[in-house]
C-alpha cells in the first residue's frame, strides 16, 4: 500500500518534471477524433473519422471553399460538353509524395477504380452515374454520364485522386496501410486503433502546410476528449456536445468553433406502417413538437430552426414552405378525432442519436395523448429496422442527415422517393418531382421541382424537419480556423497564432 503510494508519487514527479512544451513555434497539431480511421484508402471507406484524416493526404478533383462554393483543385476548370459529358482540365504542376507527376491517367484510374462494381467500394452509389472516363488530351479528361446528373460536381468533391502506378505496384491492401497521395500531408505512421501521424509535404503545390506534423488520435469518449483538451494534450477535438460547449466557454485558454452545416435533424414518421398511416396522427405529431424548445434547451442554441427537411446550404431548400406550427391543443384534437388516444408509437433509435432529443420528443408526443415507446438498439440493428419493411421501421425515428453534397437530391430523394430503402412513403406526384429535378441541369427548373416536392412533403408529412445541425469543435485559443458547412477538416486551412 505504502509502496504503491510511493511509486505513484514518483510517477507524478516524473510527469511534473517534463517541461511544458514551448508555445512559440507550433510544430505539431494534435487532434482528438471519436475514432480511428477504418481505412486510409480514400476509395474504400466513407466514414467521418476516415475521411477527416485521409482528405489531408489526398487532393480531390474539385473541392468547396469556406463559403461552400465548388472551386477547382486538381481540375482547374470544367465545362459541360452536353447533358451527359463533362470535360475537366487538369493542373499540370501536381506531384504525388514520391515525386511522380499526377496525370490524367491517375484521374481516370481513380474514377474507374471506385466505379468498378468488383472493387466493392461502399461509395459506389455516389459515383454510379458515371459511365466512363476518357483522356482526350494530356490535361483533359471527359466524364460520360448515364443520364443528365446535376449533382455530379457535388459528388466529385468526394473523389480523391490516387496514384495509379503506386496502387498497381503495391496492391490495394498495402496501399490502404500506407497510402500515398498528392495532398498537403503525407503519412508517417498509422498505429491502428491508436493514432495516425502525418508529416507536412513541403513541396505541396498550394504552399507549405501550417504544421510540420499532425497527429490524429482516436478517443471514443467525448468527456475524455474534453479532458485531453483541458490538460493541453491536444489542440482541437471533434464531436462536442452542446452542453459541453457551454461549459467550455468560461475557459480562457479554449474556444468553441462552430458553424451551421448542411446536416439536418429530422423526425421520420412512418406513413406506410403502424398507427401513423393515419395522416391525422402525422399532423398531430407535427403540431406536438416544439422545435424552438428543443433548440434552446437541448442544443443550447447550436442549431437553427428549419422549415422543412433541409437547410440553407442545401440547393433546393425552401425556407418559405413552413412546418406546421407548435400547437398542442390542435394536436390533441387530431388524436381524439382519429380515435387514437393512448395508441402506442414505437420510437426506434440508437446510441448514435442524442438521447435527450429522443426523450424530449417522446414527452412532447405523449403530452398530446399518444404513448411513445423508445426502442434503443445499436446502430446496425437500428439501420436494419429503419431501412427494413414499413412494419419493422417503427412509427417515428430521428435522423441527422447529410449527403455531403449540399443538394436536395442527396437529402429528400433517398429519404422519401418510392423504392428507396429509407422511404416508408410513396406518392407518385412526389416521385415525379424529385425524378425531374434529378435529370435536368437547369437550376431554375430544379428549384421549381423541389418546391413542388417540398410542398407535397409538407402536406403528407412522412417526416418533419427539426433543426439545422451545427458542427462543434473545441480548440486552443491560438488555433485559427473557420469550420465549413460540409464538415471538412482541412489542416491546410488552419493557422496557429
Amino acid at each position, binding site marked *: 500500500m505504502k509502496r504503491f503510494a510511493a511509486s505513484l508519487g514518483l510517477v507524478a514527479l516524473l510527469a511534473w518534471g517534463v517541461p511544458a512544451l514551448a508555445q512559440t513555434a507550433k510544430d505539431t497539431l494534435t487532434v482528438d477524433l471519436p475514432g480511428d480511421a477504418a481505412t486510409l484508402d480514400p476509395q474504400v471507406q466513407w466514414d467521418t473519422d476516415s475521411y477527416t484524416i485521409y482528405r489531408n493526404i489526398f487532393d480531390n478533383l474539385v473541392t468547396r471553399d469556406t463559403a461552400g462554393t465548388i472551386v477547382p483543385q486538381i481540375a482547374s476548370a470544367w465545362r459541360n460538353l452536353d447533358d451527359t459529358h463533362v470535360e475537366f482540365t487538369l493542373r499540370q504542376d501536381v506531384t504525388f509524395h514520391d515525386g511522380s507527376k499526377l496525370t490524367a491517367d491517375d484521374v481516370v484510374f481513380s474514377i474507374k477504380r471506385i466505379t468498378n462494381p468488383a472493387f466493392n467500394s461502399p461509395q459506389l452509389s455516389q459515383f454510379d452515374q458515371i459511365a466512363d472516363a476518357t483522356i482526350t488530351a494530356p490535361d483533359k479528361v471527359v466524364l460520360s454520364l448515364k443520364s443528365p446528373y446535376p449533382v455530379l460536381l457535388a459528388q466529385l468533391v468526394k473523389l480523391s485522386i490516387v496514384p495509379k502506378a503506386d496502387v498497381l505496384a503495391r496492391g490495394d491492401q498495402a496501399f490502404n496501410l500506407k497510402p500515398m497521395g498528392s495532398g498537403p500531408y503525407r503519412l508517417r505512421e498509422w498505429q491502428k486503433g491508436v493514432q495516425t501521424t502525418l508529416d507536412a509535404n513541403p513541396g505541396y503545390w498550394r504552399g507549405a502546410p501550417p504544421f510540420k506534423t499532425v497527429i490524429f488520435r482516436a478517443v471514443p469518449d467525448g468527456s475524455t476528449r474534453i479532458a485531453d483538451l483541458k490538460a493541453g494534450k491536444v489542440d482541437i477535438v471533434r464531436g462536442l456536445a452542446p452542453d459541453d460547449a457551454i461549459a467550455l466557454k468560461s475557459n480562457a485558454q479554449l474556444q468553441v468553433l462552430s458553424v451551421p452545416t448542411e446536416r439536418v435533424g429530422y423526425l421520420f414518421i412512418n406513413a406506410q406502417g403502424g398507427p401513423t398511416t393515419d395522416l391525422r396522427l402525422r399532423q398531430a405529431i407535427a403540431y406536438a413538437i416544439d422545435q424552438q424548445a428543443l433548440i434552446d*434547451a437541448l442544443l443550447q442554441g447550436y442549431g437553427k430552426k428549419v422549415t422543412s427537411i433541409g437547410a440553407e446550404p442545401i440547393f433546393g431548400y425552401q425556407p418559405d414552405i413552413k412546418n406546421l406550427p407548435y400547437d398542442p391543443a390542435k394536436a390533441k384534437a387530431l388524436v381524439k378525432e382519429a380515435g387514437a388516444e393512448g395508441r402506442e408509437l414505437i420510437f426506434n433509435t440508437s446510441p448514435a442519436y442524442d438521447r435527450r432529443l429522443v426523450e424530449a420528443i417522446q414527452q412532447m408526443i405523449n403530452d398530446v395523448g399518444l404513448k411513445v415507446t*423508445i426502442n434503443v438498439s445499436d446502430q446496425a440493428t437500428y439501420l436494419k429496422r429503419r431501412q427494413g419493411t414499413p412494419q419493422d421501421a417503427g412509427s417515428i425515428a430521428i435522423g441527422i442527415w447529410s449527403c455531403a453534397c449540399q443538394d436536395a437530391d442527396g437529402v429528400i430523394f433517398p429519404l422519401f422517393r418510392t423504392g428507396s430503402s429509407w422511404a416508408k412513403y410513396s406518392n407518385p406526384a412526389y416521385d415525379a418531382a424529385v425524378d425531374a429535378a434529378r435529370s435536368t441541369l437547369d437550376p431554375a427548373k430544379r428549384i421549381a421541382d423541389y418546391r413542388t416536392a417540398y410542398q407535397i412533403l409538407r402536406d403528407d408529412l412522412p417526416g418533419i424537419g427539426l433543426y439545422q445541425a451545427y458542427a462543434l469543435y473545441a480548440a486552443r485559443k491560438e488555433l485559427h480556423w473557420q469550420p465549413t458547412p460540409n464538415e471538412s477538416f482541412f489542416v491546410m486551412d488552419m493557422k496557429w497564432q
Partner: protein
Amino acid sequence: MRRASIPPAIILAMVLLTLIVVLAVLAGWVAPFDPTRQSLLLRLKPPGTVTASGAHYLLGTDDLGRDLLSRILYGARASLSVAALSVSASLLIGVPVGMLAGWCRGWVEILLMRLVDIMLSIPAVLLAVLTVAVLGPGFFKLVLVLGFTRWPRYARTAYAQTLQVAGLPYIRAAELAGARAPRILLRHVLPNIAGPLLVVATSEFGLMILFEAGLSFLGLGIQPPAPSWGSIMSVGRDYVERAWWIVAFPGAALFGLVVCVNVLGDWLRDRLDPKLHQR
C-alpha cells in the same frame, strides 16, 4: 456459540438494506414527482431548488429537468430488480448444472463443464450487446441476458464444492442408505455448498447493477425514459463538473447497497461455514 450476538455493523447493514428495498418498493408513494416528467426550463438545477410555483427539488434535477430524487427512487426499483432477478436466474441455471456435473461425473460432467467453459469464455459484454441487437431491448430480455451470461460462475462454484462435499463420509452413508440422488443433492449437498455460492451471489449482485450501468453507458440498458441507477449515472458523468449531484446521489446509494450486500453475504457465509465453528 451457536447464538453469537449479531455485530452492530451487521445490524446497520440490515437496516440500510431494508430501507433501500422498502423505498424502492414504495417508490410510487414516496417519490414527490413523476420520474419521467421533464421540464426543459428546469434543467440541471442544484439540490434544494424551489420553483416559483413551490415545487421542491430536494436532490436537484437532471439534464431534462426531471426530479432526481424521484428518479433515484424509481431507479432503485429497476436496479434492484434487475440484480435480484438476474442473480436468481443465474442461480437457477448455474447451481443445478454445477451440482449435476459434480455429482454424476463421467460424460455428464464433461458435457456440462465444457458448456460452462464455452459460456465463460464468451466475453459477457459482447454477448449482451449482440443479444440486445438480436432480441431487442427490454427489461426481461436484459434480465435473461444477464442471467444467461453469468450462470457459469455459479456452475463452476457449485461444481467444485459438490466435488468436495460428495466425497464426505455422511453423504456416502446417505447414498448407501438408499437415499435418492435428488434428495441427497437437495438435502445434504446443497446446504453444504450454500456458503460459497452466497459469496458469489452477493458479489454478483452489485456487479449486475454495474453491468446494467455499463449497458446504459453503451445506450443499451433499461430503456429510457425509465430510470435505473446506472442510466442516471451514465447521464450524470457528462455533467460531473456542472451538476455533480446527478452522479453523486445514485453513486452513494449504489455504494451503500453494495457494501451492505457484501458485508451481509460475508457474514452469512461465516455463519454457514462449519469449519469456523469447530475447535
